[in-house]
């Protein structure tokens, strides 16, 4: 399956990746795409993920054409 994987903020700096397309087996989970995209780098604790821009869990299954995102805890808004 063709899966687009995005990394944001500190997670992008740590992995050295911003956006990459990987070819995943079917079935596969969100965590599988992390391993494929990063070459099995250790995932920082508190890493959040989304499937097609909706918050997801690492063990959720993915589908062909999905956009998967990994990012650190969010810090928008204000004081």
């Amino acid at each position, binding site marked *: 399956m063709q899966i687009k994987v*995005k990394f*944001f*903020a*500190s997670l992008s700096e740590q992995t050295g990746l911003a956006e990459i397309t990987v070819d995943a087996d079917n079935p596969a989970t969100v965590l599988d795409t992390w391993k494929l995209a990063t070459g099995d780098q250790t995932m920082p604790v508190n890493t959040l993920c*989304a499937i097609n*821009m*909706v*918050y997801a869990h690492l063990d959720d299954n993915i589908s062909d054409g999905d956009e998967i*995102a990994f*990012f*650190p*805890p*969010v*810090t*928008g*808004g*204000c*004081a």
Partner: protein
Amino acid sequence: MTALLRSEAFDPWQELAHIESGLVKGAHGACASFVGTMRDFNVGDHVHSMSLEHYPEMTQQFLDKICAEATSRWDLIDCLIVHRYGEIKPGEPIVLTAAWSAHRAEAFDACRYLIEELKARAPFWKKETTDTGERWVHDAPGE
């Protein structure tokens, strides 16, 4: 319901006046609003500037979603979110949330809901430039 992402500085009072100019006069009795502004200090350090990264499509969807949730949960006439991204200087507004209703309790509760949900879950990440360099911000719980 309006949720806007802005790369340029915005004037929150003009944004509120603009939304109100489109509301029926005499229909709402209450407007609660909140403006979050960039401070020039954080965790004891002087902050010169800030860069706010986001996940554009997901951010827009998320802000639209919490506006819809607030509108279904409280009896609102309208609600508004404006959020900056990109380079921000101290003193500039980062975020505006507002809710219009017939009564004040709904307006306050909805306005607060919008900023709390946004802060907890909207995909934005702050990077500060201080006297000692750049750093990603990690919010303390409850901050």
